[in-house]
């Protein structure tokens, strides 16, 4: 290991970075909270409006559900993707760093892409 990287330094140097990151992150959070109002849903007391809106975190599944059967969209594909993720340390050893990265990136881009598709074209 690089001797500089393995050199031991006091914890305070990490703490200083922690404080700076914390303040920056809290600044972003307060900025978002103050600047972008979170709307309430449609009241359950008024006449029902046609809403079949999934939260954005499940947008990809909702997009698939609108096109493919439930068993495939809601169970097989998400569970298969999760299994691939969980097993990454083991199959990554066999296929090597490059292919592990490419597979992970492809999987992530597909799900992120479907989420964006749902959000903007769903």
């Amino acid at each position: 290991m690089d001797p500089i990287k393995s050199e031991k330094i006091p914890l305070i140097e990490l703490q200083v970075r922690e404080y700076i990151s914390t303040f920056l992150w809290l600044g972003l959070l307060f900025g978002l909270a103050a600047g972008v109002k979170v709307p309430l849903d449609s009241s359950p007391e008024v006449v029902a409006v046609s809403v079949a809106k999934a939260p954005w975190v499940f947008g990809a599944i909702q997009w698939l559900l609108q096109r493919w059967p439930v068993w495939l969209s809601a169970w097989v594909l998400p569970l298969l993707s999760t299994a691939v993720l969980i097993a990454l340390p083991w199959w990554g050893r066999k296929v090597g760093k490059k292919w592990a990265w490419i597979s992970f990136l492809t999987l992530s881009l597909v799900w992120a892409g479907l989420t964006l598709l749902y959000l903007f074209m769903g």
Partner: protein
Amino acid sequence: MDKQGSNSFRKHIRPQHIRAGTLRFRATFCLGGLSFLAFIVLTITGVLLMFYYEPGDRAFASLSELDSALPYGGLVRSLHFWAGQLMVVSVFLHMVRVVWSRAYRPLRELNWVTGVALFGLTVILDYSGYLLRGGQESGAAASVGKNLLKSLPGGKVLATVFFGQPSPLNGSTLSMFVWHIFILAGIVGFLQMFHFWRIRRSGGVRPL
């Protein structure tokens, strides 16, 4: 845990000295720590919301009053919402960073699996929070989720245990509230502590 035990756990998580290499910004991008910070903000704002929020039929009305009539109520709700969204994004980016730097390699496999579980639970927490908003959108989302669970063998019981009896116009139920604030949040909190403990044990940097 006795005093000696808690002291040694604290020193394990916060050692007096750390390796210089782990301090590089590019080693972590601080994403794990920022995810934990989001969880802390979510816990604090969640406790504040609990003073006023009523699950079930009054969910939408209580949030509406909290938003419009309570001083800083809207801000607290907004902080809770945005911290939740930022947590999902930062946990995902943290996973991308871990794969990029191959931090899932031997000795850290269990921590990778814990991380994947944390990501899944964070997404479910976000979903359960969405249902607790109590409006028509949450009712529709609860109906979809309940029907998906029911499509599994034995799913009817699972759906009732997790969702309770939501109406199509309101997804907020006492069951969902208990899952959101106690069970799911409790498991996520516990798994995070385990995650940090394992990171130190594998010689990696502390979470932030």
